[in-house]
């Protein structure tokens, strides 16, 4: 009756739409799926949110010593041994330190400028500069007073009156990230990973076992239509879940949203669809759940530990960072953080989008190739 009609694009997309709507309704009837989609990531958010909110006393400090004076050398050597200060190695120039500060990788920069510790008129003089970001004001003040009392102790060897070594605190104007910003965007990645990969990886083999996909295979339904309805569903539920996490993070953990929400949503949808592709490939290929579980874990666990889900990548050695840069989830998490907390636009995220684009092509090419209906 309508053989020609069924060839048109509108009809093919109508098919996608019906599958999307029915399966979305089905998801909301499934308590287990609802738990894993919405509640599970929130539980992690509560746990990690309260962990990173206790704030560590051991804040990370970069020490930049530009002074050649013996006093400056001695002071910096002692500072490096001081457990309170937790001086980071590997940051040697002020420019490096500044950018680390803005990425939230360090909390404070102590700068001993040229000539600090010079003996003038028999007294050691100079100003140490303590630079901090807005989110670390209290910690910086505490550090400053510790340093000031150390300076007093030094000058007391020379004079009983007056204070010629001083600490000047400066708030860095660059907006800097808190450790929670990293925790939160990592958890967004965790939620995307969980539903995008473990979802299809457990649902598809189940549908195959019930013979549902086999039955669909007898219809003219195309694999791309089936995939696309899954992509739509995942984008919608994923955005809902991530949005919920964001509301909780803003309310409970004072997450500051700097960036444009529409840009963020667009970027996250891309990330969701990218990671879903891995799930579609695994679930579409698997004949049963037992067969796919080991492969799934081999793919998921490295991403969980190397792409910034549970610990920020700046804690990793440089060589490892340059490798993990190219894992599919890394640009999703990094980009989301850059939009959310630094207000970056899509144009600023060229490198991230490039990595995601390449993976998108590879992952979906594999997913289409290995898909089987039974």
């Amino acid at each position: 009756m309508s053989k020609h009609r069924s060839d048109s694009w509108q009809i093919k997309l109508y098919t996608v739409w019906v599958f999307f709507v029915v399966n979305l309704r089905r998801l909301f009837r499934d308590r287990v799926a609802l738990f894993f989609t919405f509640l599970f990531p929130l539980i992690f958010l509560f746990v990690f949110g309260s962990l990173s909110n206790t704030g560590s006393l051991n804040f990370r400090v970069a020490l930049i010593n530009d002074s050649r004076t013996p006093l400056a050398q001695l002071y910096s050597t002692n500072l490096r041994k001081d457990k309170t200060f937790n001086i980071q190695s590997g940051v040697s120039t002020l420019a490096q330190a500044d950018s680390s500060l803005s990425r939230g990788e360090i909390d404070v920069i102590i700068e001993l400028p040229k000539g600090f510790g010079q003996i003038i008129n028999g007294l050691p003089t100079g100003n140490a500069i303590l630079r901090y970001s807005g989110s670390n004001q209290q910690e910086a003040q505490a550090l400053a007073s510790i340093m000031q009392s150390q300076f007093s102790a030094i000058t007391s060897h020379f004079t009983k009156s007056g204070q010629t070594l001083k600490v000047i605190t400066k708030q860095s104007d660059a907006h800097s990230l808190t450790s929670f910003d990293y925790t939160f965007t990592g958890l967004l990645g965790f939620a995307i990973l969980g539903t995008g990969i473990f979802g299809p990886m457990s649902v598809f083999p189940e549908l195959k076992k019930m013979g549902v996909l086999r039955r669909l295979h007898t219809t003219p339904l195309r694999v791309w239509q089936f995939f696309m309805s899954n992509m739509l569903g995942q984008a919608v539920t994923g955005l809902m879940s991530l949005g919920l996490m964001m509301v909780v993070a803003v309310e409970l953990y004072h997450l500051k949203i700097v960036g444009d929400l529409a840009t963020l949503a667009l970027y996250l949808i891309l990330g969701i669809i990218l990671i879903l592709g891995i799930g579609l490939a695994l679930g579409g290929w698997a004949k049963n759940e037992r067969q796919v579980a080991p492969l799934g874990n081999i793919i998921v666990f490295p991403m969980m530990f190397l792409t910034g889900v549970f610990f920020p990548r700046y804690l990793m050695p440089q060589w490892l960072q340059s490798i993990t840069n190219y894992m599919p989830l890394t640009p999703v998490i990094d980009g989301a953080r850059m939009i959310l907390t630094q207000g970056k636009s899509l144009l600023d995220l060229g490198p991230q989008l490039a990595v995601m684009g390449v993976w998108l092509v590879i992952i979906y090419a594999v997913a289409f190739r290995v898909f089987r209906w039974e």
Partner: protein
Amino acid sequence: MPEIIVKVKDLSKSYNGIKAVDAISFSVYKGEVFGILGPNGAGKTTTLEMIETLREIDHGSATITNIDVATNPYKIRSLIGVQPQSPGFQDRTKLTEIIQMFAAAYGERVNPRTFLNEVGLGEKANAFVEQLSGGQKQRFSIVTALVHNPKVFFLDEPTTGLDPQARRNLWNLITEVKARGISVILTTHYMEEAQILCDRVAIMDSGRIIALDTPNKLIEALLKRGFSKPPIENKANLEDVYIDLTGKKFKSEA
């Protein structure tokens, strides 16, 4: 001469060098019920699934309304309805939703309730498939295979595991489908069913068709070969008793 809808020629399929289907040929006419009989492992399912585009054809060819199965799988799938040996539907999905999905898969938009009413499942419209009995599920499965008004309807052992009422009900359904001009190809292990339902039957064994004709002609031929059976004393059998006691009409709540 009636119109040929399905034409199978020298169709063959091997699994690991063993021939499951061995160069079989037959044609199915418009509006006829064609039965494929044979013991377990004879190759019935393999034959059906090659014609349904679900399994690759090793040798030979199959066409439906002159369209080649191997080269036009999507076109063929829009022309056929398939009831697999064990149909599965996703859980937590209403019957109406599943019908909408299947219709959508064929690019159609239908009113699911009309279809459900046709097979006495109107009251179950909002139920999930897992809440249906075996017979209801079977009827429902047939509905999903017919949403797009196909030319050929394949059923693989449709009545296995059904009670006598449900089976009779299914026969009625198949007869109605046939009356709509749809060709039906089914497999069965019940000879009585084949005799009542099928216009012609092919008997398969070890991948080959060893006989193909109308049930009556096959019986005649057997009698001509001198076959005789002890005369039957009973005018009724146990099944007649069962049907008489439990009621001829199918129970929709069965």
